């Protein structure tokens, strides 16, 4: 088969459209899965994409000769199929009775999960076929195709985030499908025959996308999510909805049976909460917007939660609420006579709901002169601010159900890390308090992790007796921990005692408290909280941390997984006890991700090895399948390691996870795309330069592939060392400036990261063209394993190690690339 000299613009446009659409579809599915099921199912979209890409690599490898003879037709069919199956798969999946909560009791539920996978794999398989087909056909000019693929993917991710800012996810589905049809139309221009039939097919595909009733694409939420349950109550209805890349917000009015949301309320409280609207984020919640007329007496119930404690130790305080939500904790501050409140909320949609949509209902809470609202990431806000407060209040934001299922297990949080605590403590006025409230979980987990974090933060600040600065009270379902920038005086401990006793709350820890003061009102089998906190302030602290069956070691910025309590050695015990409540103790985030990794690895092994086995006769090539495998494995893993670690590094700097994902993903893909387009010229230039300047030695032996990979390996390490310093200097730049600087920082590294892949693939094409699709499949599989593996590595060892591993992998790719080059070169000469 002869290879055409250049890639026609219509094909390049089609590749761009399909690359854009495939990545946009993946991002969209992550959003939709989070709405329909739970947050951790977003990971499923990644492994489903893998299955599609891997299967496509295998398919193209096996069907190469047959399918390349029909290149344009195959492209058109696959692009059309992507569009149609992308819509149909989602519509059908809404009718599957898949219920992940029931898996513990009914393993046959896994069959529905399998069907779920099957439905969504099809569009990824079809989309990947289009890209892989083009790689195969134009492998000798792979740089350009790969560049278009990367830029398309990068803009697809960015475009989807932009689209989610203005449209609801289900409305965007059609747009993504339409892009598939457009790609089909573009490729159809290259057809020599059957143009008429194909035109009819494309028009019919477009018509199908247009006429499909939107109700078929409406996400059907699990009946066990809080929103579904709230809407079962007669008279309850959604009165406002806002969709954003962060979440789908639904405001529910429930006049017949009011929400009365007040977690942790004392049994001795006598005031009924006023009318409330419930904000549900992706069906979880609610966060209440409380009706407020200005009459503070109506808010009496807010004095009966554990989070009210710090107000009894301060008078007329200036308060910072980190995670203000619908405003409950702002009201609590006002009820207790706060002098001014800074309310920080991450989701602008939530702020708009309180500030605009339900302004009158909320009594213009966020428009009051004594309340300043800031839309920002909590941690980034405190880091960037130079102000100080009497009280920094971190309220209970997640719902108990979400916390209970451990679904946040692997969502990074920079709010509860050791470094965060140090920052908060440095922003307290003299005598000020940091207060953090969590749900009470049994056996205790997060409250103890917070306690351990506070202790270590104080120690790192040079406090010799940190135990004198912490207190902890617990009600029947919440725990509040107080940390003071100075010692808590005995008189203040008496105030804490009186506060707790009057509300039937228990002291878990306070300086100078006696053991008999613990476990009096909310009686546990053992005074777990008191025993554990005593152990943590004692000399055997490390032994206690190691012996505890949950991981309660403090989270750090390098290992920002506060919600991950999972320990392998406890899993067996939980599983053995699962039918009597043990299942409720398993923190599912980590095991689910680990299962995804195992599954991805098994699937990848099958998809990579299957074609080699199926062909029976070995693929003869001078470059060697083993080396091709190692080279593309390293690139797949390393690219994702760098990308994921950089997203983490930029979250704090850019102040918002969505900005970090958008800027880093788009930056890496687009600049890598440029690097890939330049790669052949870079190779030619490097060869020429070496021919004239360097006669022999390692620099000469490295060759362009080794050079590119080596540069990236060094670059990654330099960035790891230099980024914190750069960020520290650049805090004052403002939002736009920080985004521009981020892109400028990413550009050079990403540019060179785009080179090893096309250079390697070009070499494979020169010596073993059959292996091109296979190598692409290997890279695809390991990109997904890399995405999951980066998180698993970070949970255990931190992101520093992920970066170091990436550098090592690039170095290894460089070495393997060199060896391949030497072998390949000889073979080419022989030919």
């Amino acid at each position, binding site marked *: 088969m002869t290879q055409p000299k250049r890639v026609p613009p219509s094909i390049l446009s089609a590749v761009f459209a399909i690359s854009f659409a495939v990545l946009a579809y993946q991002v969209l599915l992550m959003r939709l899965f989070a709405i329909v099921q739970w947050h951790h199912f977003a990971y499923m979209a990644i492994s489903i994409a893998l299955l599609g890409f891997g299967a496509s690599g295998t398919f193209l490898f096996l069907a190469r000769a047959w399918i390349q003879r029909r290149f344009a037709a195959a492209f058109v069919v696959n692009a059309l199929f992507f569009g149609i199956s992308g819509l149909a798969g989602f519509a059908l999946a809404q009718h599957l009775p898949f*219920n992940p*909560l*029931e898996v*513990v*009791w*009914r393993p046959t539920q896994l069959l529905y999960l399998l069907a779920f996978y099957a439905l969504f794999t099809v569009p990824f398989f079809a989309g990947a076929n289009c890209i892989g087909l083009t790689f195969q056909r134009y492998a000798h000019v792979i740089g350009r195709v790969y560049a278009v693929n990367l830029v398309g993917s990068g803009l697809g991710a960015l475009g989807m985030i932009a689209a989610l800012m203005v449209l609801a996810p289900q409305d965007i589905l059609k747009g993504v499908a339409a892009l598939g049809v457009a790609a089909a139309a573009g490729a159809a221009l290259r057809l020599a025959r059957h143009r008429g039939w194909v035109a009819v097919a494309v028009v019919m595909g477009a018509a199908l996308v247009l006429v499909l009733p939107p109700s078929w694409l409406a996400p059907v939420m699990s*009946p*066990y*999510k809080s929103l*579904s*349950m709230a809407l*079962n*109550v*007669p008279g309850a209805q959604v009165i406002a909805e806002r969709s954003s890349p962060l979440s789908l917000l639904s405001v529910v009015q429930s006049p*017949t*049976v*009011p929400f*009365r*949301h*007040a*977690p*942790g*309320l004392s*049994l*001795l*409280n*006598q005031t*009924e909460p006023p009318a409330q609207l419930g904000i549900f984020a992706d069906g979880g919640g609610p966060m209440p917007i409380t009706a407020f007329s200005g009459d503070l007496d109506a808010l009496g119930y807010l004095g009966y939660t554990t989070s009210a404690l710090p107000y009894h130790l301060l008078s007329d305080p200036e308060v910072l609420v980190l995670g203000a939500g619908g405003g409950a904790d702002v009201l609590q501050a006002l009820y207790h006579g706060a002098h001014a409140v800074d309310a920080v909320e991450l989701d602008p949609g939530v702020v708009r709901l309180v500030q605009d949509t339900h302004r009158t209902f909320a009594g213009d809470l966020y428009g009051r002169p004594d309340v300043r609202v800031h839309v920002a990431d909590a941690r980034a806000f405190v880091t960037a601010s130079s102000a100080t407060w009497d009280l920094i209040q971190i309220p209970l934001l997640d719902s*108990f159900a979400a916390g*209970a*299922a451990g679904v946040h297990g692997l969502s990074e949080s920079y709010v509860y890390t050791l470094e965060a605590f140090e920052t908060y403590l440095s922003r307290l006025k003299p005598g000020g308090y940091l207060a953090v409230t969590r749900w009470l979980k*049994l*056996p*205790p987990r997060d409250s103890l992790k917070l306690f351990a974090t506070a202790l270590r933060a104080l120690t790192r600040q040079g406090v010799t007796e940190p135990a004198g600065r912490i207190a902890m009270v617990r009600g*029947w*379902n919440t725990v509040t921990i107080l940390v003071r920038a100075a010692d808590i005086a005995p008189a203040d401990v008496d105030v804490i005692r009186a506060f707790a006793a009057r509300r*039937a709350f228990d002291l878990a820890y306070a300086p100078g408290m006696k053991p008999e003061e613990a476990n009096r*009102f*909310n*009686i*546990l*089998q053992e005074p*777990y909280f008191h025993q554990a906190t005593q*152990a943590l302030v*004692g000399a055997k602290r490390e*032994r*206690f941390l*190691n*012996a*505890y*069956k*949950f991981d309660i070691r403090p989270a750090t910025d390098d290992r920002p997984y506060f919600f991950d309590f999972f320990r392998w050695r406890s899993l067996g015990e939980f599983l053995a*006890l699962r*039918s*009597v*409540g*043990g*299942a*409720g*103790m398993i923190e599912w985030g980590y095991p689910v991700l680990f299962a995804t990794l195992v599954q991805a690895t098994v699937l990848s092994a099958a998809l990579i090895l299957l074609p080699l086995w199926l062909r029976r006769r070995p693929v003869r090539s001078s470059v060697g399948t083993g080396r091709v495998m190692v080279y593309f494995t390293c690139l797949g893993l390393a690219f994702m390691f760098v990308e994921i670690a950089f997203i983490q590094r930029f979250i704090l700097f850019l102040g918002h996870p969505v900005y970090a994902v958008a800027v880093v993903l788009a930056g890496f893909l687009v600049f890598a795309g440029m690097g890939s387009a330049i790669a052949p010229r870079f190779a030619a230039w490097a060869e020429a330069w070496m021919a004239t300047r360097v006669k022999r030695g390692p620099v000469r032996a490295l060759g362009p592939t080794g050079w590119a990979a080596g540069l990236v390996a060094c670059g990654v390490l330099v960035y790891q060392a230099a980024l914190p310093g750069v960020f520290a200097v650049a805090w004052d730049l403002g939002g736009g400036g920080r985004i521009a600087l981020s892109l400028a920082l990413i550009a050079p590294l990403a540019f060179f990261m785009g080179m090893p892949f096309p250079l390697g693939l070009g070499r494979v094409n020169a010596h073993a063209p059959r292996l091109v699709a296979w190598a692409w499949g290997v890279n695809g599989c390991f990109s997904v394993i890399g995405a999951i593996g980066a998180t698993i590595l970070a949970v255990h060892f931190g992101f520093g190690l992920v970066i170091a591993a990436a550098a090592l992998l690039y170095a290894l790719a460089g070495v393997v690339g060199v060896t391949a080059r030497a072998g390949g070169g000889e073979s080419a000469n022989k030919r």
Partner: protein
Amino acid sequence: MTGGIMTNRTLKAGVLVTVALGLCWGPQALAQDDPFAALRADMIETIAEHARSAASATGRAHLSPQIMETMHTVPRHAFLGRNTLSPRPLAQLAYADRPVPIGHGQTISQPFIVALMTDLLAPEPDHVVLEIGSGSGYQAAVLSGLVDKVCTIEIIPELGKTAAKAWSRQGYANIEARIGDGYYGWEACGPFDGIVVTAAAGHIPPPLVRQLKPGGRMVIPVGGAFVTQQLVLVEKDSAGQVTTRQLLPVAFVPLVRGAP
């Protein structure tokens, strides 16, 4: 062929029932030809086993024999609502050691949890008990056989109606039910010796605490639809003082043995 299977199954059930009768309590209501009796006997055995294994956490190695006896007679399968399953799988599901979905995002609790919650209430024949969240109606049916009167409130009308039908069909005459908001309790029906709050509660409504008699007990399961993580027991002493007790339904020590 079918007849053969039927005979075989009846025979097997008969043998199991006889064994169960001999071994256990020999409840009078148990008819020899009840096809579910054997499944119920197994269910009771599983509950007893769970109770023994969780003894250190719950503080009771055995649940009250009266409760076990009552659960032995209550046809749990009749409370699965409009389930489309055919009788046999339905029965297996009903008596399996697991919660079962009943629609509207609700479940009928796992038999062991129902038994444990009932036991925590310490029901007596002259007691009046309030239930917030009738759900399937099974918990009220179990209580019905143990106390003088059960008053129960359900928010979701469809669930309330289905449960009411099941009670009347099975002849539970001492259950008074209504559909509505459970927050204010049911003053006219009270005061109560026991209250079960099976509806999800962010906090315990004060009116319920008020309607609890001195010496009364309130039980609240905490957790998701399919997993009960802990049970909260509220006790009001004779002086009207309230304390809560938090129990794990499972024997679990958070520290590795021998640690500090």
